[in-house]
């Protein structure tokens, strides 16, 4: 008989190994799924994981990995700070939208002024917008003890309505023949978040994502605030005795994650997306939650997880185009990744024991 036994201490080895095992398990079971759909599993897995990196057109896909991965990493880094301390910001998608709207709003207000300060102002605005949106659940929690999970999530839908209203009204392109959507910021040089080196996919958002990884690493390992975050997550009572002020921590964690999500939105709207439109948001804020956990809430882990997630997206599209796999199968495949990760997490805190069956 197999029994689950709680480990006296959570296993460090398993904590590092589960993401890798989860990826392997996803490949095996995902491959089986593709096989049932009539595609050679090896070809499908190869297309998803290898084609974007080493295939014939890798020169195009590699930069795209940065474009797709940067917002995920940027948002996930912010979320991980709160998650570590047990503060659950589920509404990054909304903060992403508001950041984009504030940033784009600044750009459109200055249009067509050609000036160096427009883009820096947009960056500040994007971060401030995202932070302000995250401050709503933060202040409500601090002041009235509301649940930040619910409040931040509900505010996503408010932000979406706001986005639609902006795309149809205030920010609508006056030269757009009545169609919704703002001017394309890619055509407004002062506001365009262009690639820093053409063809590399490297835009300022990618740079910010890398900086965020380093900052988070230093913060968590070398700074008092980082220590407080970790302590609050691991032992809330001990944290209180150690003099951690929960209110300050809540404001910091939600504020920081909101600002980073807002930045991600700003870089997206002024770069790859180009315009404010009704369906501008494509779920980065939610996917980043998966990325944060896949990366074990560790800055370096998140960087890798963001890359992996971007890989499955881009590889998934290639698999659709080349092999005719339905998009639903790709989504199931991505879902498996999180499922296996969470399921295998069990092994971090528990171990299997073979015992002799006892007679009742």
């Amino acid at each position, binding site marked *: 008989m197999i029994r689950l036994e709680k480990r006296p201490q959570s296993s460090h080895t398993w904590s590092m190994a589960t993401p890798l095992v989860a990826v392997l398990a996803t490949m095996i079971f995902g491959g089986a799924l593709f096989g049932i759909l009539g595609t050679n599993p090896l070809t499908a897995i*190869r297309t998803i994981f290898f084609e974007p990196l080493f295939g014939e057109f890798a020169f195009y896909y590699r930069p795209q990995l940065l474009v*797709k991965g940067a917002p995920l990493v940027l948002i996930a880094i912010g979320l991980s700070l709160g998650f570590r301390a047990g503060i659950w910001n589920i509404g990054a998608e909304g903060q992403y939208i508001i950041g984009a709207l504030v940033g784009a709003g600044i750009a459109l207000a200055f249009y067509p002024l050609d000036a160096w300060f427009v883009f820096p102002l947009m960056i500040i605005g994007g971060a401030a917008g995202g932070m302000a949106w995250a401050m709503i659940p933060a202040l409500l929690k601090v002041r009235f003890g509301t649940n930040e999970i619910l409040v931040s999530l509900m505010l996503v839908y408010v932000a979406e309505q706001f986005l639609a*209203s902006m795309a149809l009204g205030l920010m609508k392109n006056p030269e757009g023949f*009545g169609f919704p959507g703002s001017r394309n910021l890619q055509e407004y040089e002062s506001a365009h978040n262009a690639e820093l080196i053409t063809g590399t996919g490297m835009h300022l958002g990618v740079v910010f994502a890398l900086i965020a990884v380093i900052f988070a690493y230093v913060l968590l390992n070398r700074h008092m605030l980082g220590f407080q975050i970790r302590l609050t997550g691991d032992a809330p009572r001990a944290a209180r005795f150690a003099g951690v002020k929960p209110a300050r921590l809540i404001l910091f964690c939600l504020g920081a994650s909101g600002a980073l999500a807002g930045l991600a939105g700003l870089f997206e709207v002024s770069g*790859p997306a180009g315009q404010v439109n009704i*369906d501008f948001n494509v779920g980065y804020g939610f996917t980043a939650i998966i990325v944060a956990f896949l990366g074990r809430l560790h800055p370096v882990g998140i960087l890798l997880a963001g890359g992996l997630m971007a890989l499955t997206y881009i590889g998934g599209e290639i698999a659709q*185009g080349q092999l005719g796999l339905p998009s639903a199968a790709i989504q199931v495949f991505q879902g498996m990744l999180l499922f296996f990760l969470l399921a295998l997490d069990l092994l971090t805190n528990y171990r299997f024991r073979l015992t002799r069956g006892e007679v009742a």
Partner: protein
Amino acid sequence: MKLNNFLASAAMVLGLATAAVADDKTKVGFVYVGPVGDGGWTYEHNKGRLAVEEEFGDKVETVFVENVAEGPDAERVMTQMALEGADLIFTTSFGYMDPTINVAKKFPNVKFEHATGYKRAANVSTYSARFYEGRAVQGHIAGKMTKSNIVGYIGSFPIPEVIRGINSTYIHAKKVNPDVQFKIVWVYTWFDPAKEADAAKVLIEQGADVVLQHTDSTAPQAAAQEAGNVITFGQASDMGEYAPMPRVSSIIDNWAPYYIARTKAVMDGTWESVDTWDGISTGMVEIGEISDAVPADVKAEALAMVEAIGSGAYNPFTGPLKKQDGSDWLGEGETADDGTLAGMNFYVEGIEGDIPQ
């Protein structure tokens, strides 16, 4: 090591295989905004794709990617198709407009066809269908059949395309039923069965016994069936599984002839950038069978209208017509020009409510 060898050889086989087919076949790509099984918009585009395959057999290879978000994702999918040797790419949603133009700039030898947009280039054509012609027929049937005099309308996005449909429906419902009243709900999605069902239920609760939709799923049909005594129309696709009630007729987008013609043009080297806007006359817009739930005289009138629009004898936007604010739009006998229709951003007189801003 063994696994590596295996993967390498698998890669080689695949590489050879794709290289072999890429040569003389004409490769046609399709980018879809919804799933091919939506039963509406994307479903019909995919039928067009299958028709291309059937028409040209071995001479053509088609690829598609479904559920592609409008924006950078669309741009990447199009680039991917172009890189992999597509000769012609159909991008089938309005939101793919700027991405299509961007990618077309990078691949001057690849032809692009963007549905429902207004930006063209030397290698980008646009095409759309005059769905409003079909809406006129639906408006006539709706006006005749409503007992509560309340017609519900599920709008997707308040863009000219959709507003044109609402106006055309309203004008023709009002013509046969002066007491008719329209209730419009905006759902801000092309395809979301849950939202569409909610919208249909709200409209039915408000007394609507006709529900029209500019969204792609059959959820409104299901909601109407549940409520009973509510009629609907198939949108983009026939949705015939809900006939004879609640679906009493439909607008069918028939893209197949256009897709075949454009593919042929690429094969023959005669492809040129054009702006196509066809309707009932060329068969791009078809009216699905009018079911027996519609009284025979109404059905006859509707069919006569289809005939008149098809032959060009009747234009659904014929004056006298006024705008919602009471100002004159079209004088007696005057018909709307395509420019005004393409950018239509006003309701005609009599429709209540504002276009969302």
